[in-house]
């Protein structure tokens, strides 16, 4: 493994008619036969194509797949419609996928409870850092039981969205404005999580609890749940600053989340690395049969994330909002 990875650079193809190819260790972007620029393949965390009429060579896709780098193709409104995903991502992949397949229903339900509790805690922390009432969600996070039979996730969402984005807000991926900004942020996050899952030797099609028949990446969607509030917080800030569309500035801000330094149980690391650790903790849970998911926790001030070290079976539940570093959006 070259020391180059993962730098976590997000490469987005946002303008029409680009041609992408691989040349030695580089992704080369061309338009009309002219080279516009090149990026070392090892530095790329995700390649996101939002523009129409982009062409890519198969050798480029193969080279990115070898590095476990997802290629995300977006449709209208920045919603991802396809993801090119590597077949092999980890040396112990077979053993891990078998463990993942063989996971018992009780284990899956306890893992799901941990995901939901972590999501609610993250939502509570995000609200708290925006100066909004968060106690209800924190309380809800403590009440999550195995398999989330009371659907605390949905209860949380009903309280969370009006607080986070304003009373009139409705989360609908087909709408413009804040919804499109959220789509974009989630697309970047989903790509980061997908890469982490693959690097951990797990299969993205096998969700933890939900088995979504029409979704190719249910596991990525499961695992990214607790990280979504990080995007929500940034979108909230963007909207407050008057952003109404997904422009260059907004994209840069949202993509920067992947490389933001976050404090974790093992010290400060880039967010992308924390995602890797989260996916690895899921693989470990499948192998050992003991659910021990490791989610960094969202904290105050512009998207800090804090890992809660080894909380027992998803129900320990105090909200720990330590303000370790104050700024999440400084240049990395």
């Amino acid at each position, binding site marked *: 493994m*070259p*020391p*180059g990875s993962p*730098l*976590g*650079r*997000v*490469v*987005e*193809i*946002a*303008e029409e008619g*680009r041609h992408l190819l691989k040349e*030695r*260790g*580089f992704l080369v*972007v061309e*338009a009309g036969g002219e080279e*516009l*620029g*090149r*990026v*070392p*393949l*090892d*530095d790329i965390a995700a390649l996101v194509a939002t523009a129409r009429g982009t062409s890519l060579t198969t050798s480029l896709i193969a080279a990115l797949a070898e590095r476990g780098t997802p290629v995300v193709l977006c449709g209208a409104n920045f919603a991802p419609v396809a993801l090119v995903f590597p077949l092999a991502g980890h040396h112990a992949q077979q053993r891990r996928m078998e463990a993942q397949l063989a996971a018992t229903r009780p284990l899956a339900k306890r893992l799901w409870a941990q995901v939901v509790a972590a999501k609610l805690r993250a939502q509570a922390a995000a609200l708290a850092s925006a100066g909004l009432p968060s106690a209800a969600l924190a309380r809800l996070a403590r009440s999550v039981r195995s398999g989330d039979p009371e659907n605390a996730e949905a209860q949380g969402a009903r309280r969370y969205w009006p607080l986070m984005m304003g009373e009139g807000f409705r989360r609908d991926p087909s709408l413009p404005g804040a919804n499109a900004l959220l789509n974009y942020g989630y697309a970047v996050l989903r790509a980061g999580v997908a890469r982490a899952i693959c690097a951990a030797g797990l299969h993205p099609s096998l969700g933890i609890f939900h088995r979504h028949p029409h979704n190719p990446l249910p596991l990525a969607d499961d695992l990214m749940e607790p990280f979504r509030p990080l995007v929500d917080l940034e979108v909230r800030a963007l909207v407050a600053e008057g952003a109404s569309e997904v422009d*260059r500035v907004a*994209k*840069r801000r949202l*993509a*920067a989340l*992947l*490389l933001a330094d976050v404090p974790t149980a093992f010290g400060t690391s880039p967010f992308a690395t924390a995602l890797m650790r989260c996916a690895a903790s899921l693989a470990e849970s499948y192998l050992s049969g003991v659910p021990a998911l490791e989610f960094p926790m969202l904290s105050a001030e512009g998207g800090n994330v804090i890992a809660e070290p080894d909380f027992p079976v998803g129900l320990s539940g105090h909200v720990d909002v330590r303000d370790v570093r104050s700024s999440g959006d400084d240049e*990395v």
Partner: protein
Amino acid sequence: MFDLPVTTKSERRAAAKFRLWLLDQGWEMSQFSVYLRWCASKEQAERWLREISRNLPGTGKVHVLMVTDRQFEQMTVFRGRSRAGKRPKPEQLTLF
């Protein structure tokens, strides 16, 4: 920066192999025999140093010089007689 002997066939082969290895790893040619790569941290730069020492061509001289983002940005580049644009460090999001 490297200065590799290319008098015998095997030396030429070793030099070409080293150069292509650099390119495969994402090192960009700045000038002939001068290659550069941006690193996120000093630790990463040091890891590259070890990686290079493992892939040396066997003969000739290789210099590895680490410069900071600031020093790199302050570099003045002339192309022909005119001054070329400065190159900032790569950003998180690269838009094309």
